[in-house]
């Protein structure tokens, strides 16, 4: 090979790197390892994580411990789906492109909005992308965001907004739901978009249609983040006046993976199609008239439009979206609805069961589907610690994201959480709150004292 190139050694090829910029030493990393040793090392690290196989997991907050059917792995692990890249050559990428088209159809059905993209990175950054779209569509630079929107989404939106330049105004919650009066006051003729989430971060199902009136009145886009697993039973965003519906796709066919990779779905009104972020598959024909699929509307995208692109994204999370499509096909029309019903009923049972525990009360009474918030009469951290000792991850503490609910705990239910596990959670919470209640009164006494001093 060197002779064909006409050099003496590989080192000659690196001579274009100026000498002072050559590393001139080995990287300070360990030497390579055998496959068996790497497997053991990674297994050892994995073994130091308390996963949902080891603990009974009531954690949610946007990602949920659903059962992923075996055929999802079987199909997504096929080389033909796992190892190609973006379908730039459609004639040899019909499998991936058709899967994207089917996925778009499914997400459009779920949200009841006419157009869908092939997928974005994940949930919160999809919210930020909707902000960028709204600025382009309205020419305005102000967002009104419900405090019920996932805190990660709100923070990501603010991060992106610091770049493209937009003001973010937050609207509070009342009884677990977006404060309608405050929202109506906050939306003005300069508002580019109103952001809601339903079910919201505290699990409450919002009346999106009623809340959206303020957006319609001022010509702002209504952007609704949603949990796809609830759309078998909840009225879809498209029927509630949403211009954009989006969200975290993990519950559909994707593992927890400590937070990713998953995908974000993004659906919208017909007139927004040419402003949409990311890949979109479209139907067409080949020269002989056969039905086929291609990447459509590429003139929106960075590789064609460069600085005038509607977004910088290239990644469609195609494999994750395929997993979602297979999961949805497996559930099917009836199974998908039944799963929604199952979640709602198990959650209703869990909510009632926990509310009956001494030292536990509901944080709000708003309707919920698969997640709800409670208030504990004991420090949440200590209670979680006790529950973990009994092999239960009891929920997501609200303190960091909602300091006003420092005593709050968010509890999530999936089809994997049985009645027996819910009963065990109730019992564990009761015992833990009782055992830790002294800590709470200690805390209360302390704050009472400091109030006296001040």
């Amino acid at each position: 090979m060197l002779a064909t190139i006409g050099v003496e050694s590989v080192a000659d090829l690196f001579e274009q790197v100026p000498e002072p910029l050559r590393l001139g030493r080995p990287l300070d990393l360990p030497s390579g390892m055998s496959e068996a040793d790497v497997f053991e090392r990674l297994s050892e690290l994995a073994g130091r994580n308390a996963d949902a196989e080891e603990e009974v997991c009531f954690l949610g907050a946007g990602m949920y411990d659903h059962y992923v059917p075996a055929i999802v792995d079987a199909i997504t692990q096929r080389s033909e789906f796992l190892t190609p890249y973006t379908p730039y050559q459609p004639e040899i990428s019909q499998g991936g492109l058709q899967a994207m088209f089917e996925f778009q159809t499914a997400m459009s059905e779920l949200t009841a909005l006419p157009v869908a993209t092939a997928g974005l990175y994940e949930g919160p950054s999809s919210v930020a992308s909707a902000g960028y779209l709204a600025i382009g569509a309205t020419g305005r630079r102000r967002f009104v965001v419900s405090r019920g929107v996932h805190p990660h989404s709100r923070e990501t939106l603010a991060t992106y907004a610091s770049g493209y330049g937009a003001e973010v105004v937050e609207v509070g919650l009342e009884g677990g739901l977006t404060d309608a009066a405050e929202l109506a006051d906050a939306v003005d003729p300069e508002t580019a978009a109103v952001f809601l989430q339903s079910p919201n971060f505290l699990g409450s199902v919002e009346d999106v249609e009623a809340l959206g009136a303020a957006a319609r009145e001022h010509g702002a886009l209504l952007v609704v983040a949603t949990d796809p697993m609830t759309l078998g039973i909840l009225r879809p965003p498209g029927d509630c006046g949403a211009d954009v519906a989006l969200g975290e796709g993990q519950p559909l066919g994707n593992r927890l993976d400590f937070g990713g990779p998953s995908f974000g779905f993004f659906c919208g009104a017909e007139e927004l199609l040419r402003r949409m972020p990311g890949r979109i598959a479209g139907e067409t024909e080949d020269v002989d008239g056969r039905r086929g699929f291609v990447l459509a509307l590429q003139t929106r995208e960075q590789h064609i439009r460069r600085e005038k692109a509607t977004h910088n994204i290239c990644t469609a999370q195609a494999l994750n979206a395929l997993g979602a499509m297979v999961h949805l096909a497996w559930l099917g029309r009836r199974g998908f609805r039944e799963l929604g019903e199952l979640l709602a009923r198990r959650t209703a049972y869990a909510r009632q069961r926990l509310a009956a525990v001494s030292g536990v009360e509901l944080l709000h009474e708003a309707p919920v589907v698969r997640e709800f918030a409670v208030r504990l009469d004991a420090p949440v951290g200590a209670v979680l610690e006790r529950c973990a000792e009994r092999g239960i991850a009891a929920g997501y503490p609200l303190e960091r994201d909602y300091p006003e609910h420092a005593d709050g705990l968010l509890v999530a239910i999936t089809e994997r959480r049985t009645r027996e596990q819910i009963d065990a959670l109730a019992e564990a919470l009761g015992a833990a709150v009782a055992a830790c209640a002294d800590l709470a009164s200690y805390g209360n006494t302390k704050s009472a004292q400091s109030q006296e001093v001040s």
Partner: protein
Amino acid sequence: MPAGETPMQRERAVTIFERSKPGRRAAVLPRSGVPEPPLEELIPAKLLREEPPRLPEVAEPEIVRHYNRLSRRNFDLDTGFYPLGSCTMKHNPRLNERVAALPGHARLHPAQDPRRAQGALELMWLLQGSLAEICGLPHVSLQPSAGSHGELAGLLLTRAYHADRGEQRTKVLAPDTAHGTNPASVTMAGYDVVKVATNERGGVEMDDLREKVSEDVACLMLTNPNTLGLFDENIAEIAGLIHEVGGTLYYDGANLNAVMGHSRPGDMGFDIVHVNLHKSFSQPHGGGGPGAGPIAVSDRIEPFLPRPQVVKRGGGNGLGPQYDLDFDRPKSIGRLRGFQGNFGVFVRSYAYILSLGADGLAEASETAVLNANYLKARLTEGRAGSRLPIAFDRHCMHEFVLSGKPMKKELGLATLDLAKRLLDFGFHPPTVYFPLLVEEALMVEPTETETKESLDDFADAIEEILAEAEQDPELAKRAPYTTPVRRLDEVKATRHPVVRQSLG
């Protein structure tokens, strides 16, 4: 019906929705085991959906058969050579899939208490350290989900860095050879992009750069080796010019596969680097994701990194170190996404780094550069040498760019025709029509995991296509013939977009 259809061409595309028959199903759900009141008693009727979404009704055997058949309509890296320039289509070791699927990784909830996710946080810490060493920059955030997400992060970091110094800058420089994501990210970050010209050696045109450098420049974005596969020898001087006016230097890490263990962006003077874990570090490309785009930064950029950051604390008193998520970062640009990033990708890439080690990574880059130069040399022989000349004739790094201009002029064959004819020969074509400054460009990146034989086969195929085109150029212009569908009407798909199936 056209004559001589292949079996797969005869099999027309049918979607899973079209296979649906009322009453069929796959899933059997668990019994609820709890009281089952009507939904209206739990949720007000006006918030409920009347009709369930029209998902397909199909049994499991049909789902499996449907997607298996679809998969056969894809070309993939495990099946054949995939020299798609700038995408680093290297082999994806199956070990990495196995370790990512361990329950301790796959079923770990992202909101798990850090004290009970120590293995995951340690893995992230170790990956951060490895990337820092490879990039020559001390601090890493794993949060960005892809290269373009890393670019946006880098520009927002630049903005925050300047704002912290009371400066407001408006321009970002990028060469005309830059990936399309660079200018798109610049606009999203609220800057104006200023193009810098390329010199006759394929590097940054220094006079043009000098003219455009000013105190209004926030950042210069560069890929090195660049998209022509050439290392910019003036990089130290370029870095000096940008730093002199207080700008940052951003390294698009798409081409890091050329220099691992040989040269480090940090040592070249870059402040911010993104790393495409799905390129250099072997995460499978998945048909267009998932990937991940961690960033490595210098000390002066560190305070602004996204939160949370993985940190290592203490040890001592007979206790081991503890890993944690640090949210208390007052100067941080904030979050770029939910939770901690694409952890499943981190697992695969860390397994890859462990497998190869320091020596293996350096050798991977050497072989990538060797393979590219060998294939380039093979393509300067015979017909390719005159019909498809190298755009910049010098040794390349991991990829190189050919120009189909003479081929088009002499044979009437566009680069697109050559690409489509390659499909009939069982190859994925190179990246076409990029970079933009090369007419009829073909960008070829073979990667280190190809054998000499596969490179020879590819060179032979190009030669054969050019030879047959001399006899009958129409052959390539109408290609492909053997693929599941033939040339597709992309204009129609954009003029009259059908982006979902109508279900009546």
